[in-house]
C-alpha cells in the first residue's frame, strides 16, 4: 500500500510551469527565432518583425512577449499564482529588442504589465504592442488569452438586444446610519404587473464598470438563458471592514434593503427567487450574510471568494484578513445550511484556489446544491465576468429551451 503523502496535488499553474521546466530542450521554431538566430540583424528586419506580428505572439503553447526600447532589464509582471511573479525578458545582443517566451496551457487568460528598468527607475507599463486591455479599480492591465478562451459574444453590446435600465436610489439604513446609494437593474420589457427574482450584488459599481454586468444581463436575458430579474447593485463605503462578516452589512441587506426593494418593485418574496452575489471580499460578504440569515437567500453566486482560513497556526495574509479568517474558521466549523443553491467559481491562477477548493466539500456537506467551476484565470474582473453566464443561468435559468420568439 502506498504511503500517504502530505504534498498537495499541483495546481494547473504549477503543472504548466513544471512541464515547461522539465521538458527536454528541443528545437522550436518560433517567430522570434527569426530575430534571435540572425547574425546580421538589421533595423529593417526588426521593424518588419514588429509590424508583421500581433503581440504577444501565440504559437501552440508558446506565448512570445516582445518589447522594444532602451532598458537595463525588462520583466513581465503577471498575476499567475505559482509562477515566479517577475519573468525576465532576454535581450537580443546589440539591439534594444527584448523578448520572453512563456508556455501557457490553452484556455488561459493572463493579465500582465511590463516592468522596464533603467538604473534606479522602474516603470510598470502596459504592453505597447498589445491593444488588449482589462480595466480594474487600479487602472488597467494588458491581456493575453490563449486558444479556447476568446472573449464570448455575450459580453459585448449586441445591437439585437433590448437593453434594461438602471435606476438610482438612496435607501435609509439604521444599521449603518444615514443612507446608502444603490442602483437597480430592471430588465428589458420590465412590467410592474409581473413578479421577478431578485439578485443583490456586492461591488455593483465595479461589476458594471469592469465586468460589463449590465451588458451581460441584457444579453443573457435577451437570449433567454437567464430569467428576467431585478438586480440590486450595492457598494460598500468601507469595503474592507464592511465585507468580512460585518453584522451591520448583513442587517442592512436583509432587514432594510430587501424589504425596501420588495415594497418598491414587484419581487417574488421567496428564498429561491432571492440571491446574493459577490467576488473576492464581496463573496465573503455574500456568504457571511447568508450564514447570518440562513434560509433567507436561496441562491448564492460566489466568485473567487477570499475564504482564507487556518486549521492550525496563523494565516500569512496580513491583518486585513483577520476578520475574514475568523469568519471562515467559524463557518467551516459550523456551516449550517445558509442557502439552497450555491455557485462557486475560482481561477486556477489565483492564490485563493486552495481555499475555494477546500470550501467545496464543506458546502456540499450542508446539503446545499453546489456547483463549482474553475478556469485558467486570475483574480480579476474579466474572470468574474466570464463565469457569469454559467453561474446566473444555473441559479436563475431562463426559458431558452422552450421559447422560440
Amino acid at each position, binding site marked *: 500500500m502506498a504511503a500517504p503523502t502530505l504534498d498537495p496535488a499541483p495546481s494547473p499553474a504549477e503543472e504548466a510551469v513544471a512541464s515547461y521546466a522539465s521538458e527536454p530542450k528541443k528545437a522550436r521554431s518560433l517567430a522570434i527565432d527569426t530575430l534571435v538566430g540572425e547574425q546580421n540583424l538589421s533595423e529593417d528586419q526588426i521593424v518588419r518583425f514588429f509590424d508583421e506580428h500581433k503581440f504577444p505572439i501565440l504559437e501552440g503553447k508558446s506565448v512570445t512577449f516582445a518589447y522594444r526600447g532602451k532598458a537595463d532589464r525588462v520583466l513581465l509582471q503577471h498575476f499567475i499564482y505559482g509562477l515566479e511573479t517577475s519573468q525576465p525578458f532576454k535581450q537580443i545582443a546589440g539591439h534594444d529588442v527584448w523578448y520572453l517566451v512563456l508556455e501557457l496551457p490553452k484556455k488561459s487568460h493572463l493579465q500582465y504589465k511590463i516592468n522596464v528598468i533603467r538604473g534606479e527607475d522602474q516603470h510598470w507599463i502596459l504592453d505597447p504592442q498589445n491593444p488588449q486591455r482589462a480595466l480594474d479599480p487600479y487602472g488597467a492591465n494588458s491581456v493575453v488569452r490563449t486558444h479556447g478562451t476568446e472573449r464570448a459574444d455575450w459580453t459585448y453590446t449586441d445591437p*439585437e438586444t433590448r437593453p434594461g435600465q438602471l435606476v438610482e436610489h438612496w435607501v435609509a439604513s439604521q444599521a449603518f446610519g444615514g443612507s446608502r446609494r444603490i442602483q437597480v437593474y430592471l430588465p428589458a420589457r420590465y412590467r410592474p404587473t409581473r413578479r421577478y427574482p431578485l439578485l443583490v450584488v456586492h461591488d455593483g459599481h465595479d461589476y458594471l464598470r469592469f465586468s460589463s454586468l449590465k451588458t451581460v444581463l441584457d444579453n*443573457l436575458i435577451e437570449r433567454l438563458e437567464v430569467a428576467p430579474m431585478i438586480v440590486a447593485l450595492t457598494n460598500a463605503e468601507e469595503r474592507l471592514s464592511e465585507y468580512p462578516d460585518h453584522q451591520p452589512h448583513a442587517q442592512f441587506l436583509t432587514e432594510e434593503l430587501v424589504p425596501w426593494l420588495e415594497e418598491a418593485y414587484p419581487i417574488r418574496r421567496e428564498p429561491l427567487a432571492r440571491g446574493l452575489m459577490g467576488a473576492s471580499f464581496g463573496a465573503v460578504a455574500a456568504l457571511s450574510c447568508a450564514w447570518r440569515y440562513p434560509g433567507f437567500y436561496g441562491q448564492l453566486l460566489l466568485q473567487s471568494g477570499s475564504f482564507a482560513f487556518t486549521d492550525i497556526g496563523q494565516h500569512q495574509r496580513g491583518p486585513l484578513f483577520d476578520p475574514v479568517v475568523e469568519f471562515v474558521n467559524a463557518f467551516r466549523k459550523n456551516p449550517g445550511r445558509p442557502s439552497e443553491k450555491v455557485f462557486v467559481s475560482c481561477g486556477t491562477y489565483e492564490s485563493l484556489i486552495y481555499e475555494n477548493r477546500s470550501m467545496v466539500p464543506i458546502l456540499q456537506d450542508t446539503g446545499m446544491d453546489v456547483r463549482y467551476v474553475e478556469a485558467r484565470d486570475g483574480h480579476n474582473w474579466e474572470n468574474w465576468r466570464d463565469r457569469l453566464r*454559467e453561474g446566473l443561468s*444555473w441559479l436563475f*435559468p431562463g426559458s*431558452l429551451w*422552450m*421559447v422560440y*420568439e
Partner: protein
Amino acid sequence: MRPLTLLGPQRLRPALVATFDRLDITGQVAAITAGWQEREAEVDEMREHLGRPVVDLMLHQRCEQAFAADLELFQAHRQRQDQLRKMQRLYRYRLDFMIQPARELLLSTEDPELLVAEQEAAIAALRQLDNQHLDRIAVVHREFEERIADQQFPGLERQRAEVAEILSGSAALAIAGGHVAVLLNRLRLFGLLELAGDLPVIAWSAGAMALGERIVLFHDSPPQGAGNAEVMDHGLGLFRDMLPLPHARRRLRLDDPCRVQLFARRFAPARCIPLDEGAEISWDGEHWRAEKPAQILHLDGHVGRLEAA
C-alpha cells in the same frame, strides 16, 4: 387546402406586412400570441406594422379562464403535463447516452467501409428512440382525450364559440412564436385548426414549429445541459416533411458538419430548414417554395441555400 406561410423571427425587423401584401390579404387578421404568455395582449406593434385590423384571439387568457371555470379540465390538463415532463426526463437519459457515440462515429476516420454501417446503426437507434418517445406521448394524449371526451366543459365551449366567431370574420390567421409548449397546448385545446377552416395561415418561430409533424427542441450551446436536440411532442400536422428551425443562426452550430449531418439524418425525411430573420417559405399542400432565400441542412453536413422562387 389553406395557404400556409412560415417566416423567421419578426421582432427586430418585422416583415409580416410584405407577406400579407403578397397573399393579397386585406381584411381582419386573427392573431394568436399565446406563446408570449402573460405578454399575450401586447399586439400594438404588430397591429401598427400590419396596417390592418388585428384581433388577438387571447388564447392564453381564455385558457386560464376555461381552467378556472372547469376544474376537472384543469386537473386533467395538469396531470397530462406532469406526465409528459416526467417522460421527457426519462427520454433524455437514453438520448444523452446514445447521441455521443453517433457523433463520435460521424467524426471517426476509421475504415469507411466499416464505418458507414456503424454510423447508420447509431442514427437508426436515435430515430427509434425518438419514435418510441413520440408513440408514448401519443398514448398520453389519447388518454387525456378519452378522459375528457364524455364531459361537458361549458367554460371551454363558451371560449371556443367566441374564438370561432372571431375567426369567421377574419381573412387570415397569424400565429406568433414564444413558448412552444404553451402555444401548442392552447392550439390543441381549442381545436384551433378545425375552427380556422381554410383561412390562410402565416406563422413564425414557435408558431411554425407547432404546425409541423413533430416538435423538436434544439440549441447546440446552451449554458446548462447537454445541448442535445430532443423531440418534445407531435405537432398539429398542418404540413409534413419539414422541420422548421427558428433562430438557427444563433441556436445551432451550422459551421459544424458533424452536428449538421447528425441533425439532418436523424430527422430525415423531414428537411431541416433554418428559419432565421428574413426567411419566408410557403406550402401548397404538396411542395415547399422559398419565397425569399432560405437555407437547408443537408445530409452530408453542409448548409446550402434554398433559392428564392
